[in-house]
């Protein structure tokens, strides 16, 4: 069940606009008329140069900021309701761990806010730390961990309440290349185990291709979707990174980013 293809949708964006400083001289259209549907269990990457609105789009999905116009549906409800009901977990480029909490208590945080009792949240946190292979570090402090380990704690935390959707904003952006590739494999394994839908913001083309079922290509001023590239690499492993089909995917996304569209892989131009 590497790529479950159900008709259920995890996220549905219809005509989303986001305009900053509306009516002022420094008005910026961060998002222009975004239509995007992400299926249940699908892995979708948002890629584009800085200023293309990929992070803004993720924040609108997460209801961390409002859309100026348009309709955002997450897990079959409004984005605001989905946030209130904890229907997504989120991980940022910075692990955003609390220094005063141990690793385990950082993972417990979302459960604590939901009022889980101590024993149950302890058990759940250990389960998640087991999954990200950090059970031995449960009682360590965040600063005692490497950047990659901190990010794994952040991912464990984002999965704490078992939300169906995982939002990730350049989570591996600050890691070195080796760690980064290991984290990518880790993430694919976690996805395999949990069946989560994942929306993943990145500015790395190989990363987007390696991880995703679909790569959403965006361009700036105004931020909009210019292309969506389908990727089908089958089961990923270390050989995949050197496979022909992987490089074809990379080329397709690169050309889409340059605005040529219609790559060699199964790239579909325009809206889906």
């Amino acid at each position, binding site marked *: 069940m590497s790529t479950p293809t159900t008709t259920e949708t995890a996220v549905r964006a219809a005509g989303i606009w986001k305009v900053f400083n509306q009516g002022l001289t420094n008005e910026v259209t961060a998002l222009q008329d975004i239509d995007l549907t992400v299926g249940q269990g699908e892995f979708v990457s948002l890629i584009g140069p800085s200023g293309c609105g990929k992070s803004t789009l993720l924040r609108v999905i997460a209801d961390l900021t409002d859309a100026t116009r348009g309709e955002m549906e997450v897990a079959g409800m409004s984005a605001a309701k989905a946030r209130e009901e*904890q229907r997504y977990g989120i991980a*940022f480029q910075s692990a*955003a761990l609390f*220094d*005063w909490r141990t690793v385990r208590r950082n993972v417990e945080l979302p459960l604590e806010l939901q009022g889980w009792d101590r024993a149950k949240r302890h058990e759940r946190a250990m389960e998640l730390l087991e999954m990200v292979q950090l059970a031995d570090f449960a009682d360590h402090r965040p600063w005692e961990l490497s950047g990659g380990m901190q990010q794994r704690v952040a991912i464990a935390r984002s999965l704490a309440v078992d939300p169906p959707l995982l939002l990730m904003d350049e989570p591996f952006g*600050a890691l070195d290349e080796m760690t980064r590739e290991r984290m990518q494999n880790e993430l694919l394994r976690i996805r395999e185990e949990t069946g989560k839908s994942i929306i993943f913001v990145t500015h790395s083309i190989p990363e987007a291709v390696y991880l995703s079922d679909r790569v959403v290509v965006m361009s700036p001023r105004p931020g909009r979707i210019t292309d969506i590239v389908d990727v089908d690499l089958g089961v990923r492993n270390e050989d995949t990174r050197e496979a022909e089909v992987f490089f074809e995917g990379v080329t397709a996304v690169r050309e889409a980013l340059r605005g040529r569209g219609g790559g060699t892989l199964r790239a579909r131009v325009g809206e889906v």
Partner: protein
Amino acid sequence: MGGRLRAVWPPVLIAIVFLAAWQILVVVQDIQPYLLPSPTLIATNFFRDLGLMWGATSYTGLTALLGLLFGTMLAIVAALLAQRFIVVNNLVTPLAAGLAAVPIIALTPLLNNMFNITSRTPRVLVTVIIVFFPMFVNVTRGLVQVQPVQLELMRSMNANPRTVLRVLRVPNAIPFFFTGLKIAAPLAVIAALVAEYFGGPQEGLGSRITSAAANTAYGRAWAYVAASIILGLLFYLTVLALEKWTTPWAGHRARP
């Protein structure tokens, strides 16, 4: 352990060299005690009048401690209000800065008149005012300066402002609280001591230094000064120990 020892002995050595040089200077140059008494004379006075030293130090120490406690409590309440209500912040911050600019010397005789000069109250009040500013500024900074990404995380978990305060802002402010306290604690001792220069009960270190100097008992005056230094250090070191004990994460920051 060896590392800690290596950190301790250079300042100790410097202190010994300094005291020895002082002693030699006084003896060789035959400097009179009213100008500068020798370390041995001060030490002799100190240990001979140990009971007096303790009495004066505990009196001033209690004034400083009360001022530190009330000033800190007041600052925490003000900081909590300031982070919650931007209006309060705009009102209190200039007020606190104004208080910091008030020269304690100008204020003390007036407070002595306003409150009972024979009591400890005006001195504690002076200390409260001195303590308030560094505590308020630092605690407010700690409550307000949280990482934006941590605020977004709290919002994604649907946390209300009270939860954000409890789970994020207050723990975030604790290292800032200690930064303030490390400034405020020695200041409290200075304030409590200087406040005694303007009349009132004569038990404290400030009063004793003045009267000993007036009676040409220079060795004793300097012995009280030494006791004042010890009191200030005691306050500072207590704060350091408290900080180490309660915030093992201070000085550490998880890399982004």
